[in-house]
């Protein structure tokens, strides 16, 4: 029971952390709260299947072997995000954070309705890698193979991303831009490159979340990115806007809280789990309004 809970918390928290990183990366470089992130996830899910209005999905890209499929979907997510940046957010580069946020909300609505026009509104069954549901015996716990893969993949991605941010030139430039964008540009950081890079990374992370969601639920639904995006938003606020380690830590914490609530709430209250989670977050913010790891750039300087 308790070991089972640890795995549940780790895999859910890992997904939340990946999604929160996707939000925090973009917020760091251009102060954009990306309300289209959930729709990036949904688009990556639907990229697996061919456009039809039927209830049973016909696999398109999804029919590829995993070795090709995973890079293809991640590339799709990155490409979509870069395209969105070039078409929507580049013209808004000098707009206020509020206008950027509203613009991204509009982009999300446009993408969602585009999916509705192409695929119809009904959720579709997708069977992607059905073998991954098999349980594996670890000690006293029965853990689905998928959960182990998710935990491993999340650890790998977080490690690679940390290495990239610390060691590579693009990573260094991104961190500099997150600290003080104007100053970074004066010192020779190219704005377009850094911002496109951040969007590409964020889109790739959205695609990872999409793959995990499809493998877990076996459904493609136009609304499926929404709940996870909301949790990711909350994680970035709780972690301190613009702090990447904060976003990861808060994502993990929310995943753990969610798994605990699922396990220990009485049956009657379980459908309200997310409502409890959101209320818990508002409560946390009452005591630390600036988040747990507030970054220096998050507060306006006087």
């Amino acid at each position, binding site marked *: 029971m308790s070991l089972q809970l640890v795995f549940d918390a780790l895999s859910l928290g890992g997904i939340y952390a990946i999604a929160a990183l996707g939000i925090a990366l973009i917020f760091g470089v251009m102060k954009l709260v990306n309300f289209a992130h959930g729709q990036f996830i949904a688009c990556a899910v639907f990229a697996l299947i061919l456009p039809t209005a039927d209830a049973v999905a016909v696999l398109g890209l999804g029919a590829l072997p995993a070795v090709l499929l995973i890079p293809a979907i991640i590339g799709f997510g990155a490409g979509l995000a870069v395209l969105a940046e070039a078409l929507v957010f580049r013209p808004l580069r000098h707009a206020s954070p509020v206008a950027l946020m*509203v613009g991204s909300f509009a982009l999300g609505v446009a993408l969602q309705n585009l999916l509705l026009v192409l695929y119809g509104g009904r959720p579709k069954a997708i069977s992607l890698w059905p073998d991954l549901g098999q349980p594996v015996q670890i000690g006293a716990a029965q853990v689905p193979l998928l959960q182990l893969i998710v935990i491993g993949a999340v650890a790998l991605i977080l490690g690679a991303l940390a290495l990239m941010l610390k060691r590579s030139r693009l990573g260094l430039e991104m961190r500099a831009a997150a600290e003080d964008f104007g100053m970074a540009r004066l010192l020779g950081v190219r704005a377009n490159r850094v911002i496109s890079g951040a969007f590409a990374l964020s889109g790739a992370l959205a695609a990872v979340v999409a793959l995990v969601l499809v493998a877990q639920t076996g459904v493609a639904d136009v609304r499926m990115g929404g*709940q996870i995006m909301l949790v990711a*938003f909350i994680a970035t*606020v709780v972690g301190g806007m613009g702090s990447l380690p904060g976003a990861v830590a808060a994502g993990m914490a929310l995943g753990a809280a969610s798994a605990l609530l699922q396990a220990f709430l009485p049956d009657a209250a379980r459908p309200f789990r997310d409502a409890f989670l959101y209320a818990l977050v508002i409560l946390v913010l009452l005591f630390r309004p600036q988040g747990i790891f507030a970054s220096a750039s998050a507060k306006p300087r006087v």
Partner: protein
Amino acid sequence: MLTSHQIRRRMAATTPVLLALLLLAFVLMAVTLGDRAAARMASETLIRVTLVVGFWIFAGNSGVISFGHAAFACVGAYVSAWTTLQPGMKATLLPGLPEAIADAHWPVLAGAGLAGTIAAALALVTGAAILRLSGIAASIATFAFLAMINTIWSNWTPITGGTSSVVGLERYVTPWVALGWAVAALIAASVYGASASGLALRASREDEVAAAASGIDRYRHRLLAFTLSAFFCGVGGALMGHFIGVINPDGFYLSLTFLMLAMLVVGGIGSLSGAVIGVLAVSVTVELLVRLEKGVTFGATTFALPPGSQEILIAIAMILVLVFRPAGLLAGREIMLPARWVTGRSIPKE
């Protein structure tokens, strides 16, 4: 002799009057010239004016975008349904209601008033937590609040009917009822905007630090505006319910939030007139697009937009407005009478 300050106050007082006359002209035109569909569209538009003007009281004055106001509309709609539905209907649709509410059969006006009051009370409680956050973080917290209300309303089946709709609401909302509430919202918005609290809140929107240094308690004024604005969103939600006759939690979720935001952004968040003009502009556009989706015949050929393209086009229009006219159609200006009309004589030299 009037001082220039007095003249400006008089000019500002003409804004709600002119906007109310504009709405009256809109209703008269739709009722006398248009078909039944036009009259329905007029009621729907005026309900949205109530919602968006309510929304503007907070978002416009504080500069904080709220994603949570659709939740107040949701609460308002259900409060009105709980108090005004036939007790027999409630026994079958909502068996979990406490006895006092289950037996209640209130007149609709009292239902709408209570809808606004409960929404305002909820705003007072949640705002006390959410509004302590800084601008963007507060926006995200309002989004969490919206999702929280939607989760509760979709799952609390004995009380709210869950995801299945509550039906049988008395359909009393004519264009004239909607006009009455829209004008009430306009008056409240302009009275609040001209009050000391409204001025203080706008000062903190323009420069947080300078306002704090002048002794303005931003949190208190934000909370007041949030509460007042939730009242009209609650009433707007009740009107929406009684306009269609059927309510469902998902009717008050993301698409309503999007529509309210789009209207405010297109018209211009900086002024009350912007909010009203935004509602009119977006509503008329949506109506045209919906008719285009049904198909328009030019001679022998029928031209129709694919279904669902309406929201895509509105979203694109919203992005274009943000890029090319960031302050919206009215760019923060108010519609008001010129100075010489309100003084009745030539303008004094300053």
